[in-house]
């Protein structure tokens, strides 16, 4: 099995809720990367029972803001020379663009062509996001 040590330079996204690594893979657009990406499903975890892990080899700079929105339990370690050089603290991003869609049928996003789906952080305490256009709630926890 892979472990952190096997990566000399790259990013380890750990403590992903079991079963959701493929969704993260999609959101982070990892399919567009040239470097090797390891996906570990259902790894044993003391804290979580089961978890998923994603390891990205050879890449240090990736926009990971969306992770804070999707799941704030995720941890991110940046590895260089085989050592953890940074443990990233995930924060809730102010804006989420084209990650989730507005579910309000009265929202302009339901008919306007070529429009970005944008959600703004409305209340950090409750992780509440609102559609930029119609203010419909979106709560990633629910």
């Amino acid at each position, binding site marked *: 099995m892979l472990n952190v040590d096997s990566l000399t330079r790259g990013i380890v996204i750990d403590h992903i809720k079991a079963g959701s690594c493929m969704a993260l893979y999609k959101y982070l657009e990892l399919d567009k990367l040239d470097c090797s990406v390891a996906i570990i499903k259902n790894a044993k975890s003391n804290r979580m029972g089961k978890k998923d892990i994603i390891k990205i080899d050879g890449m240090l700079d990736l926009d990971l803001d969306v992770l804070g929105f999707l799941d704030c339990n995720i941890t991110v370690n940046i590895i260089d020379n085989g050592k953890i050089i940074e443990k990233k603290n995930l924060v809730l991003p102010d804006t989420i663009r084209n990650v989730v869609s507005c579910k309000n049928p*009265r*929202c*302009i996003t339901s008919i306007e062509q070529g429009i970005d789906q944008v959600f703004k952080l409305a209340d950090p305490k409750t992780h509440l996001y609102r559609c930029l*256009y119609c203010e419909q709630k979106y709560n990633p926890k629910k």
Partner: protein
Amino acid sequence: MMKHLIDPLDLTAEEVNEFLDLADKIMEEPSKYRHICDGRKLATLFYEPSTRTRLSFEAAMLNLGGSVLGFSSGTDSSAAKGESVADTIRVVSNFADICAIRHPKEGAPLVAALHSEIPVINAGDGGHQHPTQTLTDLMTIRSLKKRINGLTVGICGDLKFGRTTHSLIKSLARYTGVKFVLISPQELRVPDYIFESLQAKSIAFKQVERLDEVMPELDVLYMTRVQRERFFNEEDYIRLKDSYILDAKKMELAKEDMIVLHPLPRVNEIAVEVDHDPRACYFKQVKYGMYVRMALIMKLLGLEESEC
């Protein structure tokens, strides 16, 4: 940065007062402003009909010496051919200096603003926001009561789904000492976030089911409609339906200087007999609305009074 008016709360309390001050000045001496918009054009892009609002905007621009162009329903516009709001506003930006947009979809005016070369005014987007109505409401209250601070304002009707009442509540909550009396059926009370924001700011408010109970306390009564289909059950509808209809009998309970407002159109929630009562101010409200829109057009076009 280009200024638009999309959400009434985009304006600070000071900016709101500046608009109202200018509207007051225009109302005092309209002739002074008769040519300030000479040679300028307002586009009214109405994707759904709202004759009253459109005429108010058009009258406002004409009174300032400008001219108007536009369309008055989605069916006779480019939207019927499937053109996006973004593309329409890009085109209209070449023809007009400012535009007012009304659209059945929530957020459409914001989409327009994001792609516009000219100032955009939200003239109503579905049930979402209607900032010129909110400014009109504030202007009417301030003009007729000579103040907003310290008033007890009753808001009656569907307070759950009527989001224009939410903007009004949030705007009034920025003044000092305003007390709210929220009159609605249990099921149609204001949403939790409004309730919580009033509590958090320690703003005095109470929620009641019947209008007649609270009539004597009110300085302002803002009536809106409760639609039959909004009631959860027939029993409540029958029990409460008359509670939300303002008639002469309920007016007897009110203060002599209370004012009654309504965003119009009225259906049956205010009995016609009330129209003759001097406290019925909902038709005056229309006039204030036009002056507010005149002030708004001037401010968004960056026209100063000194230019008159």
